[in-house]
């Protein structure tokens, strides 16, 4: 409903996932949640639970180990949702680009709405990115979003998108 849509940007709850980052960006995210930068003044809560989150904050270049968790967490977030990629390595691979055990950036697996650059990116940039994400969040619809760029066809049951079957595909694709 139109009335409720305006409240999306007033209460963004975030889920933070580390897809194999060096921990630099995670610390910056925690710094922006801490008293000095105080993200909670925008209503942000770090829920740690995908089913209750709106914004998916990902750091790291997606190691092979973390791929299936990344996609599973993404599919468990109910729409409307926004993905914010924090750090250079999340966007392009950064310092990990071309390594044997990592992918180059999370947008090979899930659609990204906001890229926050920097290695490590600063709390100011992260807050900027989140505020940008809120605009996108408000404009989004409640349609189920399709998580895959790499794993081909969309799985359906009947004519509905199936989260379970799509998550299963990631499981089966070992390296």
């Amino acid at each position: 409903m139109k009335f409720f849509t305006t409240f999306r940007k007033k209460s963004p709850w975030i889920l933070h996932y580390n897809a194999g980052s060096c921990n630099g960006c995670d610390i910056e995210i925690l710094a922006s949640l801490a008293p000095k930068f105080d993200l909670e003044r925008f209503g942000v809560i770090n829920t740690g639970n995908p089913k209750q989150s709106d914004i998916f904050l990902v750091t790291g270049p997606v190691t092979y180990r973390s791929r299936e968790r990344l996609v599973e967490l993404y599919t468990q977030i109910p729409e409307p949702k926004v993905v914010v990629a924090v750090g250079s390595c999340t966007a392009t691979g950064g310092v990990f680009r071309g390594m044997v055990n990592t992918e180059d950036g999370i947008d090979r697996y899930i659609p990204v709405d906001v890229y926050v650059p920097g290695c490590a990116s600063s709390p100011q940039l992260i807050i900027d990115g989140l505020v940008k994400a809120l605009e996108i969040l408000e404009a989004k619809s409640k349609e189920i979003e399709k998580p895959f760029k790499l794993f081909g066809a969309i799985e359906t049951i009947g004519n509905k998108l199936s989260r379970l079957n799509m998550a299963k595909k990631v499981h089966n694709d070992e390296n």
Partner: protein
Amino acid sequence: MTWIWILLAPLLGGLIYGGERVLRARMQRRQGPPLLQPFYDMFKLLDKRTLIIHAPHALLAVAHFLVLWFTVAAIFLGWNLLYIIFLHLFAQILLILAGYSVRSVYSHLGANRELLMVVAYEPILIVVAVGFYLISGSFEISTILQGGGYWHQLPLLFVALLIIVPIKVKKSPFDVGEAHQEIVGGIEIEYSGVFYEFLYMSRFLEYIFIYSFVFLFGGESYWLGAVLVAGTFLVVNLVDNATARVHTADMLKIVYGVAMSLAIINILGVLL
């Protein structure tokens, strides 16, 4: 008039919760969310797609909320204190059943801890009710509110109640049942969208439930009651900001060791 208060109870609780978030932010010297933040959260949750595990799981959350609302209504109507405590227990049991009804390990862990919390605070609540009975001669809230002098005669009982308030409002050091980032909210974990909203709102009602026990200590003087509630509110939040979460077993030890002995000493003192 009472009915209006009953209908508005979740909103009132929401304001308390919003005020608490602001207060905690100020204690940490930051700006904090706006006062109406809990309502923004509620409206946003209405706008989310809802993922349901299975129907009873979702409905138990609704039932938990409704029974809790009924409990708060009973408080406002001045019913028997024992009924109210057991109605509240019933609401908690619905929630615990919901926790056990899904396969998530965290949900089970949360339900276990919730059960331990019930075991910890329930006897104290009953002893508090007994204390009121010994002084005023009745379990009826309307009668208790006409008496006075609970504050002088039951000081240790008040301290015992103060120890269990953080358990009920899920604050440090006794927030084991929810324990964000450790068991990810416990029972709440599998809820989303509208059904999570019911759990979110039932937290508001818990605030009213436990703080009305504090309020009763004021007796006929509502001003004293209000001062006690405000003081408790401050102390609980101060302790919440200053302490870390204790282990579940330690929580039981503290509650049974300290709070229970204080309560029993006080009751014996009144009896003898």
